[in-house]
Structures are given as structure tokens and as C-alpha cells.
């Protein structure tokens, strides 16, 4: 019953990965591999997203109607499932960005205090 498994790569703050995916998709529809690649490249290899956390996160976004999925053909002519951000997803992204910045500023203030 509902066992809690240790994920192979520990998630940073809960919900952060969803935010990064939404941000990536706000530039245009993309498939799972493309999303992971984009996040890794833009973060300059600081963030590596494995499928073990990517696909559950995408399912959560689908369940909340923040993204839509559709099969299509990738840039190198391969079948791929493309994810597209919805209007609700954009709203969510904005909100998450705000609370993330708030949190980050809070952490920074604590770390920089003497």
C-alpha cells in the first residue's frame, strides 16, 4: 500500500521540477527528452533530470491540466509525445515563480546574515 520509495535522484524543493518543466514549455511544445535536455543545457549541467522524476512530474502536470500531451513527429522525424502548456499552466507558472522568488530571497537573507 502507498509505499514511499526513495527516488534515485532526490528532488530539490518539492514542485520545483514542475516549475522548470512549465518554464521550458512556455517557450513552445516539447517532448520529454527535449525538456530534460533543455533544462540541463540552460542550467549548464547543474540540473540533470532523469526519467524517474521527469515522467511522474509530467503526469502530475497532466492531472492538473497544466499541460496537454499529443503524439507528433520530432525534429529528426521520430515519433514523440509532445507536451504543450495550457492557459492554466501559464497562470500556475507565474504563481510558482513568484513564490519561488520569495522563498529564494528568504533563504538568501538567512544565509547572508552575520
Amino acid at each position, binding site marked *: 500500500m502507498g509505499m514511499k520509495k526513495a527516488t534515485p535522484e532526490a528532488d530539490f524543493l518539492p514542485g520545483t521540477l514542475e516549475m522548470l518543466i512549465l518554464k521550458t514549455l512556455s517557450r513552445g511544445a516539447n517532448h520529454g*527528452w527535449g525538456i530534460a535536455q533543455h533544462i540541463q543545457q540552460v542550467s549548464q549541467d547543474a540540473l540533470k533530470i532523469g526519467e524517474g522524476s521527469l515522467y511522474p512530474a509530467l503526469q502530475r502536470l497532466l492531472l492538473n491540466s497544466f499541460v496537454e500531451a499529443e503524439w507528433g513527429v520530432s525534429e529528426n522525424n521520430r515519433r514523440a509525445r509532445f507536451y504543450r502548456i495550457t492557459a492554466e499552466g501559464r497562470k500556475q507558472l507565474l504563481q510558482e515563480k513568484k513564490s519561488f522568488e520569495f522563498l529564494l530571497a528568504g533563504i538568501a537573507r538567512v544565509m547572508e546574515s552575520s
Partner: protein
Amino acid sequence: MKIWKRIRLLAQRRQFEDDLAEEMRIHREMAAAALGSDAARAFGSAAMSMEDSRAVWGFGRLDSWRQDLRYAVRGFRKTPAFALTVIGTIGLALGLNTTVFSVFNAYLLKPHAVRDPYGLYLVHLGYGEGSRSQFHLAGISGSVPPEGRVQRRHGL
């Protein structure tokens, strides 16, 4: 609504599984093409990723219930004597319990199934010492004193 999405997806369970498996397979192919052959290993167990993705939709609990049920049935089929003993014991105990309660309910909890049950008397005539006639019934008991006058006393 989330709940409707869940139910709709549950109906298209096979499709969901196929989509997810296909998607992950493609993911691995792309990873292998981009990073080399040891990429697949770096991504960990595919079965576990599938399981985590399914769990998001709440299929995990449903699956584990079904597995528990199947496990129980398999266990029973393997040791039929034990299964029959258990079923017999529980069945007997249940039947006995129901019977005893039915009787208890009919005689003690519910009023008797006759018109004006509280007007009912069961009369014992006794010619013992004191020569009082005893009667009991339907929540009223009393005694007939020698003079023959009926006194009602409430109680059991």
C-alpha cells in the same frame, strides 16, 4: 475536474500504459543516441519510473489491492484444506451468531408479534407455600395474592 480525468484515464488504462511505455522507450533511444550506450543505465529502472508515473494517477493503490487479492486467492488454491477449514469456521461462527441474535431479537428486544402485547399474561398457577399464583410475561410480572386481586408491578 481531477476526479473525472482519473476515471476517464482508468477506462483507457491500456492506452495510458502503452503511451507511457512508448514514450519512455523513445526517451531512452534519444538518450542513447545523444549520450552513448551507457545512458540507459544512468536513467535507472524503467519499471520503477513507470510505477512512479502510474502512482501519480492513483493507480498504484488499485494495483496493490488487486495484487493482494490475487495473492490471497493463489494461497487458498495452493492449500485447499486450510482454506476450507477457514471458510467453514468463519461460516459456522457467523451462522451461529446470526441465529442466536435472531432469537434474542425476536424474544427479548422486540415486542411480541401479537395485538396489544403488553396485555398478554402467562399464568402459572402454583399451590406452593403462601399459595400465591405467579405470572410473567411481556415485561410485566406480578403475583396474584390469595385474595385474587391482580397487582401490576413494572420491571422485567
